[in-house]
């Protein structure tokens, strides 16, 4: 009978096993020949519902199990018989990999919860794959390789967002170094006229200026606009040295930067000519025009339209174009972190333009003020059309008359601003955390007092809705007011452990789900649900964690990814935890963005509820791993703020 095994042309490896393995990661990367040989080494076993497959610390694994049909639960049992559910696994999932790799007995109890058929892959064959195929080691050792993450993003992009046209999009593939043109420069001591004729000769809109004695040292830049504004309009003698009108120093970007990042920088700073640096040397200039030429549907067009708007009502339709821009970015492969940054920049510019125009309409304010953005806006994490969360902080008035004037002015100002924002498509905040609410339109001293009270006499009930205030940032106006408030808060929070304790314990109230099983999400108590609240269960735990630690360690950033990075840089969290948390957080944001984009396109109101049935295996795997990261974050919080 052995004659019919190996090498027999008739001993076909059954299609059933081959097609099964082709459908699961990382086996889908194997070539046909390897798959066939592997399939011939497999066995198929059946375990009726309620069969114990593995017993923790006892069962020695002779093979790896793959569920073909049915499902199992994984659990631990302590000496008192107390059972902790650890996981549910369904079709396509594996059992026993870790124990085989580590050469230990099973680490979990496994029992079938349905009639279950499994493929059994011999231990040695599996170990051979781990050794020979890099993708296997990565996959089973649970370290997300760059490749898996990229696959997940690509999957999200290709399967869930359909392109509207065949426009080729470059923002995320082209680096500025590839766009930069021949370096054109002139000595700082040259005359303005010499510089202008050089620009005409080379047909360029800007020119780099180098040190009169050292041609390699770039000291400034001039543009067409400088010639127009600073020379012609001002009647300046163009025999003057060019250095009198140059902008200096030159803002630079690295040649390997992606066009997208450069565009963000231009939009953020308002500087549209940047010098490109390679290996410490300026190699040329990149302009917003160069990047715009790359594509017709750039966020930059919207940005320019917003800046040029002279009527507040003209901003309404522009704000409604933001989803289109975001769609383009997702389609192009932008990651959630970049997208939310772009959304924040566009929203900020709409706000800035609107309040500038409004201020022209109402006249100058009696005292300096700052429009504060709170919650997700404060964190620069809005997706589509999130509720308004804003407030006004103004300088302390000098006397009663000024106080009354300020109160009256900002009341009217806020009322109009809120209305305009609603017209732009930002819905009212149901909790009335808006500048139009007198409580949240206050001078600096009142704001300081608010935060002092929240921090010194924390009332858990009140804290629950006050958390969004701790994510404030300056949206428009006198940023120094917001900075002063932040500094005050940081000083005051030192040593207020009770406040941080409440904040930390509240953060841990929402437990991450355990796993996916078939088309359900399994909660820690074993309950099966058919929808996942990706905001509450998936994202908020990261936001809360980052907030608690940022406040504890005086990190000024409000953005969650930036907070996590600052915490890593400050050595307050481990590098490994930082990278897992950032990755898990961003991937879920992406999931949420794509989900909401699809809803908008289907004409429904975007929400945060994801149906597990819509998720691919890879997405489930990534989400499941994100859930385990949440548990690790809670572990850190729990250690810092234990319940005694």
């Amino acid at each position, binding site marked *: 009978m052995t004659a019919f095994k190996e090498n027999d042309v*008739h001993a076909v490896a059954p299609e059933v096993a081959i097609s099964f393995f082709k459908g699961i990661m990382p086996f889908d990367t194997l070539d046909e020949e390897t798959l066939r040989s592997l399939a*011939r080494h497999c*066995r198929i076993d059946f375990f009726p519902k309620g069969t114990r497959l593995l017993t923790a610390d006892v069962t020695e694994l002779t093979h790896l199990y793959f569920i073909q049909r049915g499902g199992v639960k994984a659990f631990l049992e302590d000496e008192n018989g107390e059972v902790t559910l650890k996981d549910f696994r369904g079709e396509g999932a594996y059992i026993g990999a870790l124990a085989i790799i580590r050469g230990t007995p099973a680490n979990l109890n496994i029992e079938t919860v349905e009639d279950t058929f499994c493929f*059994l892959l011999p231990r040695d064959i599996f170990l051979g794959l781990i050794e020979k195929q890099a993708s296997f080691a990565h996959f089973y050792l649970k370290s997300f390789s760059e490749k898996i993450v990229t696959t997940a993003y690509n999957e999200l992009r290709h399967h869930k967002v359909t392109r509207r046209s065949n426009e080729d999009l470059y923002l995320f593939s082209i680096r500025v170094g590839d766009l930069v043109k021949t370096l054109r420069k002139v000595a700082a001591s040259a005359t303005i006229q010499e510089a202008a004729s050089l620009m005409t000769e080379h047909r360029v809109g800007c020119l780099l200026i180098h040190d009169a004695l050292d041609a390699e040292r770039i000291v400034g830049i001039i543009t067409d606009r400088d010639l127009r504004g600073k020379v012609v309009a001002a009647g300046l003698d163009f025999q003057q040295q060019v250095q009198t009108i140059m902008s200096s120093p030159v803002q630079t970007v690295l040649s390997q930067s992606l066009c997208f990042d450069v565009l963000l920088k231009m939009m953020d700073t308002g500087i549209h000519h940047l010098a490109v640096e390679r290996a410490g040397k300026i190699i040329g200039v990149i302009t917003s025009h160069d990047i715009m030429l790359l594509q017709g549907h750039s966020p930059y067009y919207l940005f320019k339209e917003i800046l040029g708007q002279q009527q507040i009502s003209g901003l309404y339709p522009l704000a409604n174009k933001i989803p289109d821009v975001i769609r383009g970015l997702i389609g192009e492969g932008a990651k959630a972190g970049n997208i939310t940054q772009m959304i924040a920049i566009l929203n900020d510019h709409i706000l800035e333009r609107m309040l500038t125009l409004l201020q022209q309409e109402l006249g100058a304010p009696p005292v300096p003020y700052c429009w504060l953005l709170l919650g997700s806006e404060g964190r620069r994490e809005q997706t589509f059309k999130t509720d308004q969360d804003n407030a006004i902080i103004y300088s302390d008035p000098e006397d009663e008359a000024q106080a009354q004037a300020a109160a009256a002015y900002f009341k009217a100002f806020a009322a109009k601003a809120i209305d305009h924002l609603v017209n732009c498509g930002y819905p009212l905040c149901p909790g009335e955390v808006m500048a139009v609410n007198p409580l949240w339109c206050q001078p600096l001293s009142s704001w300081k007092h608010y935060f002092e009270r929240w921090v010194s006499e924390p009332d858990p009930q009140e804290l629950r809705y006050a958390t969004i205030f701790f994510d404030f940032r300056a949206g428009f106006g006198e940023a120094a007011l917001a900075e002063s408030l932040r500094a005050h808060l940081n000083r005051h929070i030192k040593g207020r452990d009770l406040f941080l304790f409440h904040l930390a314990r509240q953060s841990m109230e929402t437990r991450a789900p355990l796993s996916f099983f078939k088309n359900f999400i399994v909660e820690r108590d074993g309950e099966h649900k058919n929808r996942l609240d990706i905001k509450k269960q998936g994202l908020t735990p990261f936001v809360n964690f980052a907030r608690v630690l940022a406040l504890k360690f005086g990190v000024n950033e409000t953005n969650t990814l930036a907070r996590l990075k600052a915490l890593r840089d400050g050595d307050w969290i481990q590098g490994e935890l930082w990278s897992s948390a950032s990755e898990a957080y961003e991937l879920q944001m992406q999931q949420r963005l794509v989900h909401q984009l699809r809803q908008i396109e289907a004409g429904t109101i975007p929400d945060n509820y994801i149906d597990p049935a819509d998720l691919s295996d890879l997405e489930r795997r990534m989400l499941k791993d994100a859930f385990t990261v949440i548990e690790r974050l809670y572990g850190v919080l729990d250690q810092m703020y234990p319940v005694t």
Partner: protein
Amino acid sequence: MMLELLKPRSWFAPPHPLITRNREIFAKFDQSRPLTEYTFVVCDTELTGFDLKRDAIISIGAVVIRDLQIDLGATFHRYIRPKDITHTQATLIHRITPQQLAEAPPLEEVLPAFVEFAGSSLMVGHCVALDMGFLNKAARKILGGTLSNPGIDTIRMARGYRRALSGHFHGEDDWSHNYSLEALSKEYNLPAFKPHDALEDAMQTAYLFLFLLKKFRKGGLLTLKDIYQAGRVGSVWS
């Protein structure tokens, strides 16, 4: 030549050594050992029709179950060139082309290979008597004797299982129940295979057999004898 004819035994051709060995293996067959100790060959034949006199086997597919697990390294799948190549209407429902049949070896080559493959295993099939009827007819002709491998019929097992589940005999009601391989696989939510291909059907039957066997085993039936008695699921061939 003439002298050969004079020997009494040569009037009846002696059985092929394969048959002799097959008989020896099962002469001392013991039904009381634990199920895990037996090897099973789950087989399916594709036929040109159901008439034992006129029809022929055109394909044999089989998989091995050892340690109560399907061994994917041991499968058997052959096409067989029938004597009358024109008499092949059945290929319309089988997934076999006339071309494949024309190129296939004759049963004289395939049958000994199959007997060797089956070895000391028990023969399992869905309505195994039909397959065994055709195989034994061929064996008598080609090898001078029939196979002694005991058979197990998954239809009878399924009846026994149904009876065990409900606790009583269904009687007439049972006859309206659909016991086709496809229907049972669906009823028990087994992975589905393409029908009318000998190997795929054998694989489907193997899943069904494994399902039923392990269900019986969970119910406390631990030896082959237990299974036979509980389900009256088969018989020892003779």
